[in-house]
């Protein structure tokens, strides 16, 4: 079994118009910059994919990675918890112009909805958001005398995730806090596409140390020197 693909272009080739795409990362930590840029390059060359629904915690920074993806106009809808940031002009302008739809989800609910999608749990109850605008129209149920909001699972056609090490069967480890949404998105997507700094043979990752078991991963591409969104933005990079 070998889930590696030869290059970034091949890795993202199957993402179709209108797809829901989960993109890992919290700010720049864990952002799969190279996979996102490969998707942008494909769009510039072919006009596809377009009309994407993107799930991420944020809306990107500067003009690289997620911000650059949004800037192309490929993204019809963003599902996220915090689309405001240091340099959010790209999303803010499109949003104010009515050119991109926003579904705002509390961060913990976003994480839990993605996990639920991966775990086959169609709905769950959470105290988060009860009594606020973000629970408007949602089903409320009381348990042990306390009200909770019903939230639905979130699934995706694709996930783009950045890992530290991958073996060819798809077992993954992450680096520090870049783990964040990665393990959840791997579970919730029909096709999970991983960029890993190192690809190793099965057996090279201790079974105890595996964070994402290979069953949740479909494609792996090695990116040996991944770029960091924060570093790119400090250098004023534009993709």
């Amino acid at each position, binding site marked *: 079994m070998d889930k590696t693909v030869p290059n970034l272009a091949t890795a993202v080739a199957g993402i179709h118009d209108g797809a829901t795409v989960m993109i890992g990362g919290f700010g720049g930590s864990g952002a799969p910059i190279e996979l996102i840029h490969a998707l942008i390059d494909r769009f510039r060359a072919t006009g596809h994919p377009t009309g994407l629904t993107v799930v991420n915690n944020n809306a990107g920074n500067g003009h690289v990675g997620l911000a650059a993806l949004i800037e192309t106009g490929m993204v019809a809808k963003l599902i996220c918890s915090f689309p405001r940031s240091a340099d959010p002009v790209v999303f803010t302008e499109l949003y104010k112009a009515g050119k991109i739809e926003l579904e705002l989800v509390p961060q913990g609910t976003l994480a839990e909805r993605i*996990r639920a999608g991966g775990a086959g749990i169609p709905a769950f109850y959470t105290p988060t958001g009860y009594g606020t605008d973000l629970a408007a129209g949602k089903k409320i149920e009381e348990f042990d005398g306390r009200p909770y909001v019903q939230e639905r699972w979130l699934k995706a056609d694709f996930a783009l995730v950045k890992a530290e090490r991958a073996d060819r069967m798809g077992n993954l480890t992450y680096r520090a806090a870049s783990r964040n949404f990665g393990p959840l998105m791997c579970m919730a997507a029909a096709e999970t596409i991983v960029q890993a700094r190192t690809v190793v043979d099965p057996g090279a990752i201790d*079974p105890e140390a595996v964070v994402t078991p290979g069953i949740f991963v479909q494609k792996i591409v090695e990116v040996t020197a991944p770029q960091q969104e924060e570093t790119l933005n400090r250098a004023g990079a534009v993709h």
Partner: protein
Amino acid sequence: MSETLSNAQIAWRAAQDIADGAYVNLGIGFPEMVAKFQPPGRQAIFHTENGILNFGEAPAPGEEDWDLINAGKKAVTLKPGAAFFHHADSFAMVRGGHLDVAILGAYQVAETGDLANWSTGPKGVPAVGGAMDLVHGAKRVAVITDHVTKDGKPKLVERCTLPLTGVGCVTRVYTSLAVIDIAGGHFVLREKLPTLSLEALQAQTGAKLYLDGPVADLIVPEI
């Protein structure tokens, strides 16, 4: 009595339908035997509910590590690329639709796809384990079973009379006499032992067998 397949032969037949690289859960007991009969050149990845992916055969007697067991509490070994995880992640794999195939035993299977395989009724201590979870989520849920009970009663029935494990979940049944798909609320015969007439098979089956295209000969090796 007509010729029937042995358990090993039923397991062999089920193993032929497992693709290379498939993620597979084999129920406790008889279904575990399927792992022995993977066709050459194919390697499935086996999942056990208690938190291992890609485990292998039993260790030699005396070499057991009792922290390294499968859902049947038998000692196993690891293959390269194995992973450990906790029970909630393990059943996320099951319920979340990540397994390609689950192969289970059965007391009864109905033409609706309903399965009864966890309880023979109110006597004794009830015990369900992971059976009710395994019938949901796997892309394909197959059953391996003798075609009839020890006293000759049909196990393939119109409606299960024993307590259900799951509703409308089974899509294929490998029996000691035939291979039968479940589709549209019907048993659809795909393969039968060449020595067995359709009438004789129907006589041992508790619901109508439908045909949808030719019925192949069910041919398995001597094992």
